[in-house]
């Protein structure tokens, strides 16, 4: 297990380094970026930039210095908002995005698993068809489309819930719903198919032959095994939710990191783009790592397999 963890950890660092390097050199190639001569920024901003990115030094030195500051979690100043640094922006926007993402992920996991299990237990029944219809629609309708439809119907036509900003739970309902539907659908389908497969396994028959109640068979024997494949996709689902926050925050005018990120893209605020990309990548790669560890802990076969291999 430890050997495996170390290996995964090193792969994680390499991926991160790749992303940092990629962003650095991509930004270097761009006209109008902080590294380029043709920038058109105010005096004050320019001085900030030069100081942070060591623009007077040769490129390799800039790269090393840049790596150093990234490791220290310092992403430099914003171009457009002269008095702000990327770190301040992250500090302000991230908690909001984190809340949105966490609530969404929780809703998606809980409802997705429930839906998938119900569908599998009532295989080819009405509940199954209904759950799978919801799932297919959830996968097919892009989150930004669903978000706008929700605004149009629920907020504008029916006036049930507020449209924009992030103040009370009522503000959270629509964005969460829009963002959670896709991942929920994926989890529901995956849970259903893996549950169906697990239910045909011999050990389920063994459990039945013991005379256990159906509830015990499902909860104790089937569910844990059926959820193992679901755990493996959590990382990529989290990635989907994270990128989803970009559009959802833009649509619902939520002052989160996603909204700042989209604004920075449209304003070509390069330090913000770089900083956010690296920050998000770190977060996601770390999440993938956590998911792997969790999987190893949940499935006894993996953990001990590694031990024996040593």
């Amino acid at each position, binding site marked *: 297990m430890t050997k495996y963890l170390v290996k995964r950890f090193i792969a994680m660092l390499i991926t991160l380094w790749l992303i940092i390097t990629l962003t650095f050199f991509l930004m270097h190639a761009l006209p109008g970026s902080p590294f380029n001569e043709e920038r058109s920024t105010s005096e004050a901003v320019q001085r900030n930039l030069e100081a942070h990115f060591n623009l007077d030094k040769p490129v390799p030195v800039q790269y090393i210095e840049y790596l150093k500051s990234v490791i220290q979690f310092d992403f430099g100043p914003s171009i457009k908002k002269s008095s702000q640094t990327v770190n301040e922006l992250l500090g302000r926007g991230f908690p909001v995005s984190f809340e949105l993402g966490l609530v969404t992920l929780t809703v998606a996991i809980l409802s997705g698993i429930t839906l998938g299990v119900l569908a599998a237990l009532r295989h080819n029944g009405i509940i199954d068809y209904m759950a799978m219809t919801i799932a297919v629609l959830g996968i097919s309708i892009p989150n930004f489309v669903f978000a706008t439809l929700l605004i149009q119907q629920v907020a504008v036509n029916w006036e049930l819930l507020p449209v924009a900003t992030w103040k009370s739970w009522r503000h959270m309902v629509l964005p969460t719903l829009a963002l959670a539907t896709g991942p929920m659908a994926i989890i529901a389908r995956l849970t259903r198919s893996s549950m169906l497969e697990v239910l045909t396994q011999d050990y389920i028959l063994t459990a*039945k032959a013991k005379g256990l109640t159906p509830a015990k068979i499902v909860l104790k024997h089937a569910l844990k095994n059926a959820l193992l494949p679901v755990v493996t996709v959590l990382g990529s689902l989290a990635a989907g939710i994270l990128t989803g926050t970009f559009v959802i925050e833009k649509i619902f005018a939520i002052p989160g990191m996603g909204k700042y990120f989209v604004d920075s893209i449209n304003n070509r605020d390069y330090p913000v783009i770089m900083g956010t990309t690296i920050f998000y990548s770190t977060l996601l790669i770390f999440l993938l790592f956590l998911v792997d560890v969790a999987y190893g802990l949940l499935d006894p076969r993996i953990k001990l397999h590694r031990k024996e291999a040593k």
Partner: protein
Amino acid sequence: MVKILEVKELHVSFTTFGGEVHAVRGVSFDLYKGETLAIVGESGCGKSVTAKSIMGLIPNPPGKITDGKILFKGSNLAALKDKDLRKIRGADISMIFQDPMTALNPTLTIGTQLMEGIIQHQKISRSEAQKKALEMMRLVGIPSPESRLKQYPHQFSGGMRQRIVIALALVCEPEVMIADEPTTALDVTIQAQILDLFRDIQKKTGVSIILITHDLGVVAQVADRIAVMYAGKVVETGTRRDIFYKPQHPYTKGLLNSVPRLDLENAELIPIAGSPPDLFAPPPGCPFVARCQYAMEVCDKVYPQKTKYGKEHHVNCWLQDERAKQMLALQR
């Protein structure tokens, strides 16, 4: 001898996309206390389905017991609700499945899996259940059971896992144990050990065993009585001696001829040509007719009645009919 289980005219069908499959078509047999009854036949003959029907483990849909009775301790298992059947499953009748690699839940410890059956059926504390589990593990010959209790299935070898599966089946001290191909997935040397274990357990606990297998070698070692199944029907029943030394049904003879034997000199292996009939549309007569070298016109038309041949020996074959015997005598 005391009858403990009676299966009478059992019919089981499966509804599939291709139509209805009559997997079991009127199977009857008795099981006596403390004996081992082997049900023998090639794959697809309905022996596993028969076993699962007794346990009420036929998946419904698509499967269904369409007719017949399974009598156990005065109740008809075929008519019981799942809720009532559950009290019998694992407690009075238990089952062992073919592949010990897949029959155990990979994510639960052996201890958990052994104990949950006891806890389900008996009012007993966890520590007592654990004591019982340990006792069972000792009975089936697992060394140092205390440390093994906390381990997962993948940490056991195939033979050890099958011992665990047997312990699982015995843990509530059932009266009947059904073993569905319990040695098929094992190495030959392990097979012998497991069969020894079966005999040993039967001596110690007096459990009645129904052994489902296609392996006549296994049957010869442990069975007291044998029922031969073909295409969803029992075609011949008898004691081990009856079946091995005086087989009457051409199919039984064919089965015995297709197994290598050391006790007979220059015995040639003769496979049975052809394959069993399609159970989507079972033939009205004897299902073996297409592969039988003694086939008569009557065999195509009507299924033969059960005829008594010896004390415990019964056979369903037209060759037992007087008219067939006359005809064969004339031919000679």
